[in-house]
């Protein structure tokens, strides 16, 4: 694995950490004061800083460090995470994301913004507690710190030892603590320091678990002129008496576990007394280990070499910081105890949440697996079909085996599909940043409410969702919501609400974006459409039709072009990208109350439970989720309505009858309803329709195949599938059929033949 690959993994992890950071901050913003949430946020920034340090990403490290310092104040209850603090932190999270992206793609960052935020963060950390920065020494400077701190007095260089004590970290009366005695040997490697971890901080965290005594082994220390300020020369032998388990100890070293040798053993079989009687032996310390580590990180060293000198210079300074920290740490024992408990709780929760290990897989491999399983399902269906045709003995072992195979195939398919399904959460989270930015730019006060973040949808859909959603969110805040003054004047709260929801419906994912703004100004839209020759001046349009005008190319109701919108990317682009995903978008707007955009997207690649039907000698699949019931119409239930329409009466209500074969142009005249079967379907708009088909073949699970890959979008058809006999069958787009039966055109907007 070369450096670039490692770096790529780091950036992937950064993405996760950033998501974690943002969701944690948002939770805090909503009033969550769980210490674990704070810890998670801190961890995220800390991990980014550590990784960035290893790769020499200076900008990222320095920003993350300031951020982390401020977060540490929150973590240690020295800074109350109120709305103002969180506002700064959320912005800092944005900048951190920018810096990460810049480090990955080489782009530039808004330097002024990051400098400003560094100032704000420092102000927060210092304003509340002037000592705050001392509690968290600079990560790079921390590396050489142990040298001056713990240098033995017998040093020929005439080095003055600096007194350093861990006493303050220890609980006051260790003997009163019930617990097990552990013997921990902690040997950091150079990487630990290179990643911005600090052994003293780890030891301090450890001290919160119980009573402990620490012995530093400094046999490995080199004379000053041979000393590498980046290397690690010390190891510690720690006797810890704690009532927490080994897991709690391990979780202290969670960030450092790859970068140190850690031996945790029960001392004297766990007897409480053993702690005190433990003979102190010199800790064996193998210097060749350091050499290995140094060789392994040679490349890293080149990258960070520039900072080595600076680090060395600041070593003395850090030492005094550490000392200061030790001296100023005069917390009451009760508080120390409380902290220890909190830390232990957090550690326990941390251990629980870390229980789901994940694996990173190339998307192509998953795709291949999904395709293969799709083929397997088809083959299994083919096999079933031929066995049924050839074997009349229903109880034969073949049939039983086949049934089992069917079940297995289905399970495999479900599992494989689940691999690609992901919650929409990351996309939704990204939107909160957009809202913040636009709100800042426009001076509006906006609250983003998200619902159904855990709704799962295929990864490809998620990836393609971000762009149209971003655009719509921008529109909602910029055009949709009024200014706080206008809102107050209209009798609304000054803060506007944008609501983003996701849910499953009829085998599709429905994403709704609602704002409580002024709604669409229909007069303005209409006038604009007339000006642009989209409609005739005297055209009589319904409200709905006017609303839909905003999807036309080059249509913007913004009075002036702003930074945010009106840059030539209109709602037409949103509509097109949604359609490219096989989705639809609808608006409903109420003047003064806001607008709702509803996007309905397919769960692509997903498997569909379908009703296989025959229409005009063609085999079609109707998604089962859309079907409410099926019925055999009787002649007395069919009523003509005008010249062309027919209604069917179902339990005393009348439902329009739609001949699928006719509407898809498979036949020229309407079929006789009495000879067919009616499928009562419910569409997205809530309306019911009775779809007439010729016959029902049965229910089957089908694999969705894209029509668009080699053909084009076909109105009324959602996708294709391959049946057991190897032939292609089309999957009906029920909503589009219902819409067409309402009089909307089912003519292709895009045509395969358009340019011919």
């Amino acid at each position: 694995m070369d450096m670039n690959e490692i770096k790529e993994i780091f950036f992937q992890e950064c993405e996760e950490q950033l998501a974690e950071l943002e969701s944690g901050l948002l939770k805090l913003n909503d009033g969550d004061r769980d210490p674990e949430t704070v810890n998670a946020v801190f961890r995220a920034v800390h991990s980014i800083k550590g990784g960035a340090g290893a790769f020499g990403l200076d900008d990222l490290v320095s920003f993350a460090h300031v951020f982390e310092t401020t977060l540490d104040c929150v973590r240690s209850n020295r800074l109350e995470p109120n709305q103002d603090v969180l506002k700064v932190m959320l912005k800092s999270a944005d900048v951190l994301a920018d810096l990460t992206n810049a480090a990955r793609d080489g782009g530039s960052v808004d330097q002024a913004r990051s400098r400003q935020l560094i100032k704000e963060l420092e102000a927060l950390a210092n304003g509340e507690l002037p000592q705050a920065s001392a509690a968290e020494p600079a990560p790079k400077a921390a590396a050489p710190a142990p040298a001056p701190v713990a240098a033995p007095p017998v040093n020929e260089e005439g080095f003055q030892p600096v007194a350093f004590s861990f006493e303050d970290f220890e609980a006051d009366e260790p003997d009163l603590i019930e617990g097990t005695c552990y013997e921990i040997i902690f040997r950091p490697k150079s990487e630990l320091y290179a990643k911005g971890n600090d052994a003293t901080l780890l030891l301090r965290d450890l001290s919160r678990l119980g009573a402990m005594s620490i012995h530093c082994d400094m046999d490995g220390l080199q004379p000053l002129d041979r000393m590498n300020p980046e290397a690690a020369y010390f190891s510690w032998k720690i006797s810890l008496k704690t009532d927490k388990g080994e897991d709690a100890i391990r979780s202290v070293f969670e960030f450092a576990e790859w970068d140190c040798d850690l031996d945790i053993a029960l001392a004297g079989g766990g007897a409480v007394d053993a702690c005190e009687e433990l003979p102190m032996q010199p800790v064996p310390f193998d210097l060749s280990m350091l050499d290995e580590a140094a060789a392994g990180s040679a490349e890293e060293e080149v990258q960070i070499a520039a900072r080595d000198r600076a680090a060395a210079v600041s070593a003395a300074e850090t030492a005094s910081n550490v000392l200061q920290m030790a001296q100023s740490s005069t917390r009451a024992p009760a508080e120390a105890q409380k902290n220890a408990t909190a830390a232990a709780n957090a550690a326990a929760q941390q251990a629980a949440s870390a229980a789901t290990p994940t694996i990173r897989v190339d998307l192509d491999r998953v795709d291949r697996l999904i395709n293969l399983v799709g083929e397997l399902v088809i083959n299994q269906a083919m096999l079933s079909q031929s066995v049924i045709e050839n074997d009349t003995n229903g109880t034969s072992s073949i049939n039983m085996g086949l049934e089992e195979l069917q079940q297995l195939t289905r399970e495999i398919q479900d599992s494989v599909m689940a691999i690609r399904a992901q919650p929409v959460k990351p996309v939704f989270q990204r939107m909160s940043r957009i809202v913040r930015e636009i709100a800042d730019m426009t001076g509006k006060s906006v609250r983003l409410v998200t619902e159904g973040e855990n709704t799962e949808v295929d990864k490809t859909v998620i990836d393609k969702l971000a762009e149209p959603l971003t655009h719509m969110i921008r529109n909602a805040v910029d055009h949709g919501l009024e200014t706080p003054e206008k809102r107050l004047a209209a009798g609304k709260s000054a803060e506007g609400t944008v609501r983003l929801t996701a849910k499953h419906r009829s085998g599709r994912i429905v994403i709704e974006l609602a704002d409580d703004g002024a709604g669409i100004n229909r007069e303005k839209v209409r006038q604009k459409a007339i000006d642009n020759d989209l409609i005739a001046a005297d055209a009589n349009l319904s409200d709905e039709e006017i609303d839909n005008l905003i999807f036309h190319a080059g249509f913007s109701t913004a009075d002036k072009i702003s930074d945010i919108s009106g840059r030539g990317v209109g709602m037409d682009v949103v509509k097109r990208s949604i359609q490219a995903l096989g989705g639809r978008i609808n608006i409903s707007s109420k003047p003064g109350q806001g607008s709702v955009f509803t996007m309905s997207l397919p769960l692509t690649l997903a498997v569909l439970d379908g009703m296989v039907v025959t229409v005009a000698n063609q085999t079609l699949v109707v998604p089962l989720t859309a079907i409410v019931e099926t019925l055999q119409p009787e002649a007395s239930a069919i009523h003509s309505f005008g010249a062309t329409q027919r209604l069917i009466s179902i339990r005393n209500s009348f439902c329009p009858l739609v001949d699928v074969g006719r509407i898809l142009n498979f036949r020229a005249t309407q079929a006789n309803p009495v000879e067919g079967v009616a499928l009562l379907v419910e569409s997205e708009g809530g309306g019911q329709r009775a779809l007439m088909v010729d016959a029902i073949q049965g229910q089957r699970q089908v694999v969705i195949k894209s029509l668009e890959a080699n053909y084009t979008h076909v109105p009324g058809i959602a996708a294709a599938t391959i049946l057991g006999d190897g032939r292609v069958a089309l999957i009906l787009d029920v909503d589009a059929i219902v819409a067409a039966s309402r009089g909307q055109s089912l003519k292709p907007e895009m045509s395969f033949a358009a340019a011919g």
Partner: protein
Amino acid sequence: MTYAAKNLTTGGRELIAFRVGDQEFCVNIMAVREIRGWTRATRMPHAPSYVLGVINLRGAVLPIVDLSARLGMKPAEPTVRHVIIVAQVKSQMVGLLVDAVSDILTVRDEEIQPTPDISSEFEKSFARGVLAIEGRMICLVELEAVFPQEEREAA
């Protein structure tokens, strides 16, 4: 030395020639993915008349175009003897229904004559040139012109 072999040594290009009705056409061999027999296609609603429907090509949905109808000639009545040329046009795959594949030709660029000055714009748009080979006239088909990729949105 055969005609084809003679040209191959001089660095010509390879074309697949096929028959549609009583005329001969050819396409660049690089665009051809495979050649297979006719199987019944599933009809597509609202499809242009020359799109016969779609078939299953090892799990992918492949549209089948009746080249005869597409070129404005008599629509084919597909039989088992008909052949489907699976061709790649940009990122999409398309199946061309033709009567039979006749030849693999190796020609040099200078052997391709410009399309004769004929009145019909339609023929000119899909013909990239003509070849005179052993007394036959073979029309080099521009696949991208026959199957436009970038469909324009209806106004």
